[in-house]
């Protein structure tokens, strides 16, 4: 049905081409956590537009994180590069590598970007850099965190949230009621969430997961990742404290709200959503550790596509600076539940008041001291999927061993990374 129809040419004449002012720029953003937020985002855009005359930002809603990537890339290839896009934080490396987005120094003029990045939490910085240049400015970030039902804990005689993996297994077993009446622990294992949590468990197990300096290496068959795969798998098959098979994030939150799951792991970005929907006493705790406390960051950053005019670049920077100012980034954090990646936002009085009222929001921030960057390699999604497929297989098939799964994940990921490695680490430069 899709025809590149010549009939379209007939119509070109019918459409008065809209006069586009040079400083009109497009800002593409996905629906974060809850849909009502896209309305709030449009409000912010309006506020910016009325605050000055030089730039007119058009807020463009672009669906999910993946749709946002597809749409902005397609628009750029078709010759309409968007000036500002809110992009999943770990896509920036790949976009920069493929020369699709521009380093922020091209937008920012004389601004000291390294100095600016110092105002952001150390954990969010690595994903913002590529080859020594800042390519993205963090806007809304999250880490995985443990939510637990305090009433179930009291009932099972558990006095505090688990801090180590051993305590975690113990608590999960105690909280589980047989025949699926209640699960001790649930974690989302759908794509994207799955890889993020395997990385979180690997980091808590002392691992690095991927080479944070060189994007052509991944450590799936290392002991730390193997241990993470085994640990997650055992919850389902050995301890019988988690449903087998693939569970998506919506099932996880729904089970938690209905009392069918006592502990869940979800993004801190879901804090406001949980706060609004949990009709019982709940709390949040750090992700338990085996070797160390450590989690990857998640969330989204602002990037700018290649091919915009100088005037658009200037406008884009003006908007990015405004949106990531401590005031606005703090406001967005309070509204959504994401933590504000800019540390200085927490020095503002509104933010101090908010964290005093909502100590769970503070917990998410405290965990940041132990956070690291999110997997970003050559062809990130395919590399991530290599381990996600194996983790899903492990959860579904009790016969599959974690060693076999790790070996296969490594093999498949290596095949994806091979072309990049051939051109870089295996070539004299």
């Amino acid at each position, binding site marked *: 049905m*899709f*025809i590149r129809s010549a*009939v379209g040419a007939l119509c070109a004449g019918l459409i008065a081409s809209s006069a586009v002012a040079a400083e009109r720029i497009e800002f593409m953003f996905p629906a974060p956590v809850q*849909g009502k937020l896209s309305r709030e985002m449009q409000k912010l855009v309006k506020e910016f537009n009325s605050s000055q005359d030089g730039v007119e930002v058009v807020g463009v809603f672009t*669906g999910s994180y993946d749709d946002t990537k597809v749409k902005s890339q397609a628009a750029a290839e078709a010759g309409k590069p968007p000036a500002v896009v809110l992009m999943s934080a770990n896509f920036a490396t790949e976009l920069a590598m493929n020369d699709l987005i521009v380093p922020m120094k091209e937008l920012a003029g004389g601004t000291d970007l390294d100095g600016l990045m110092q105002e952001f939490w150390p954990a969010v910085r690595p994903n913002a850099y590529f080859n020594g240049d800042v390519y993205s400015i963090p806007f809304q970030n999250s880490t995985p965190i443990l939510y637990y039902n305090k009433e179930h804990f009291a009932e099972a005689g558990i006095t505090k949230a688990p801090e180590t993996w051993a305590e975690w297994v113990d608590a999960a077993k105690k909280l589980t009621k047989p025949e699926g009446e209640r699960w001790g622990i649930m974690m989302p294992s759908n794509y994207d969430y799955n890889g993020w949590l395997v990385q979180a468990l690997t980091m808590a197990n002392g691992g690095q997961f991927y080479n944070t300096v060189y994007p052509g290496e991944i450590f799936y068959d290392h002991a730390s990742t193997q241990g993470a795969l085994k640990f997650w798998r055992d919850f389902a098959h050995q301890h019988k404290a988690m449903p087998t098979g693939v569970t998506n994030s919506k099932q996880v939150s729904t089970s938690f709200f209905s009392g069918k799951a006592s502990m869940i792991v979800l993004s801190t970005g879901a804090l406001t959503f949980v706060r609004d929907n949990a009709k019982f006493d709940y709390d949040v705790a750090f992700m338990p550790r085996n070797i160390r406390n450590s989690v990857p960051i998640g969330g989204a950053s602002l990037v700018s596509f290649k091919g915009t005019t100088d005037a658009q670049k200037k406008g884009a920077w003006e908007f990015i600076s405004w949106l990531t100012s401590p005031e606005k980034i703090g406001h967005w954090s309070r509204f959504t539940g994401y933590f504000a990646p800019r540390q200085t936002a927490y020095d503002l009085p509104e933010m101090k008041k908010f964290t005093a009222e909502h100590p769970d929001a503070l917990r998410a921030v405290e965990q940041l001291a132990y956070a690291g960057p999110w997997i970003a390699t050559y062809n990130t999604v395919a590399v991530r999927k290599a381990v996600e497929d194996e983790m899903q297989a492990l959860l579904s098939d009790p016969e599959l061993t974690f060693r076999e799964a790790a070996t296969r994940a490594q093999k498949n990921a290596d095949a994806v990374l091979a072309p990049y490695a051939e051109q870089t680490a295996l070539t004299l430069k």
Partner: protein
Amino acid sequence: MKPDLKKWATPGALLAAAMCAVVFLWSTPFLWMLIASFRPDPGGGLGMASLVPDFVPTLQSYRYAIEDGYWPLWFLNSTILVTGTLVVQLVTISLAGYAFARITFPGKEAIFYIFLLQLMLAPPVLIVPNLTTLVHLGLYDSLIGVMAPYWGSAFGTFLMRQTFRTIPKDFEEAAIIDGASWWQVLRHVLIPLSLPGLTAFSIVSVVYHWNEFLWPLMVINDPDKMVLTVGLVSFAQGAEGASDWGLIAAGTLFIMAPLFIAFTAFQRQFVNSFMSSGVK
């Protein structure tokens, strides 16, 4: 088996029971959506999955859906989109169908098969090339841009060719003897006899474009040109672990309402046209 049960268990009754079971199965998603949209606590809870309305119905989800969406605008845009697509399609497929059915020209068969090959292409493959064309034509970010790639329809052309070929040539010859030109033949003889085919195609086209999500999402940037499907997702989708099912259900019911009402009202005509056009 009891005797009176035997009396009831005739083949006809069994068939009816089986049909009822199938109908129930097929309408489950719709029933669930209807019930979910009236649920007072739509955020979560396993009760959400239940098909049994075990609550006092509330219009809260509908209220939120109305408050959150710019419905009149989205309905207008979707209506413009499906109408604009269909009107042009009806003209192009009638003409192309006529050419392939009646006119002899060199390479006709080959061209026809090349035309049909388009049906094999998965639309997402064409996103970037189509967008590039739209940008060159100045149609990016316009509703016309969403419609344009669909103005030539391989499926519609094929359908009309087949329909025209089932009409005996005698009718046309009679008209030609009376001095009708080819377009008068098409307009006054072939098209009136092909109405079932055109209706069947119209239904397929309208339903497809009314429900389409990815392509309008790619082409449209301006919030004033947003269509229903993209609009619904803009306030009802959650990226990180959250979904308001009641809101999604209410919004989806809004979107499907016009098509649902139209289909119920003209059910007999629609089904007849599918029967006689061979589209099922």
